[in-house]
């Protein structure tokens, strides 16, 4: 089972992922953990660092931003893939995400057809 940590300050994101991956969750292909802030995400990650195969994070959050979270995750786990998900679709933010070591950037509204292979670890997905 692939364990994925999703970080977004909007609580409806959890319901969205649970519904979008309803079948895969039922089949036990994937499991999600949700954090509402960067701080919370770090806590969850540090409690069980080996659990997660992927982290999806929003950028604009009160408190620790998604970029700051990305930076700290890079220090702790350089190999752990992180994909940024943001309503900021501009090239500048995308570039910044790449520079900081994100493996992918997904713009909101999220296109789940694009995100799905990456979440499920299917071949040919680069984020």
């Amino acid at each position, binding site marked *: 089972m692939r364990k994925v940590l999703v970080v977004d300050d*909007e609580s*409806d994101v959890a*319901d*969205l992922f649970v*519904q*979008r991956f309803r079948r895969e969750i039922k089949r036990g292909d994937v499991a999600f953990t949700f954090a509402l802030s960067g701080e919370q995400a770090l806590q969850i990650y540090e409690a069980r660092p080996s659990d997660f195969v992927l982290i999806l994070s929003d950028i*604009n959050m*009160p408190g620790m931003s998604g970029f700051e979270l990305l930076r700290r995750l890079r220090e702790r786990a350089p190999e752990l893939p992180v994909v940024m998900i*943001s*309503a*900021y*679709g*501009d090239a500048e933010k995308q570039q910044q995400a790449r520079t900081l070591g994100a493996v992918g950037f997904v*713009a*909101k*509204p*999220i296109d*789940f057809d694009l995100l799905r292979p990456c979440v499920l670890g299917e071949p040919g997905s680069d984020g």
Partner: protein
Amino acid sequence: MLNRHRLLQRQIRKYLADNPPPELTGLLDAVDVAYQQLDEDRAIIERSLVLSSAELGDANRALRVKQAELEANLQRIQAMQQQLVVQEKLASLGGLTAGIAHEIKNPLNFVNNFAELSLELADEMLELLQTDGAPDVAELRELCGMIKGNVDKVLRHGKRADGVVRGMLLHARGQAGERAVADFNALVDEYVSLAFHGVRARNPDLQLELERQLDPAVPHFAFAPQDLSRVVLNLVGNACDATLARREAEPDHRAHVLVQTIHAGASVRLAVRDNGAGVPAALREKIFEPFFTTKPPGAGTGLGLSICYDIVRSHGGELAIAPDSSEGSEFVVSLPYAAA
């Protein structure tokens, strides 16, 4: 003149026959000379008049050309100024665009995705209903519940996006909102807190004393709550910014903001006083102009006070900076509550 003089001479000679007495001949000659002199002077004057009127004509034409040039320049400057205002408005909207896009795309993410999910869930329901035999009621009920939940989210986030756009339009056009009789003190109380939280979000280690004195005698009256909430947000935001800016320069400075409502005759007053650096006399009018800001780029649009001014005027009221606003400032909104 010369001709008339000759006529005169002839007439005189007629009366005096052909040989006038010598004394008169002398006189006549003298008159003659005088007249000739006069004629010459006149000619000179006339010529110089002709000359100077030609010069005047030239000067006039030149002036007219200059005037036309100036008018064209003025028009060009006015056009440029208008363009500049539009450009500045666009630039400020451009600066806002990233923020606005973000604020809209977040709810849109939910609207699109939960709508699509609902469609899929409805298809599943239909499939269930089309299978032979009795459908699984429990499953149908579960699907139905999910659809309901999703549609509720679509609605909620749709309204949220609508609110963002509405606020943006209000900002761009200064449109007046709907009025209803309501509790002004409650509105002030709520938005002072919101403004304070907004400032604290930007300044995590905020040390600011925020005092409220809300006059219980303030009556309920008709106002546009969305619009006046903006006025409170902006005035309190400006006051906090000013005190905090001063604290940065003088670390011992105790930042203090006082918000008061006052029932005064036929009007309600809102006064926001701060102990920041104040507004220099030379800028007291300028600060109300759209796009005038002393804040660093990106920190202020300079639209705050000009929008506040429009909103207060549309309520038939006045917004002014108190005259003694060099040591800290006080902005006073005065709203006649009887006026429509």
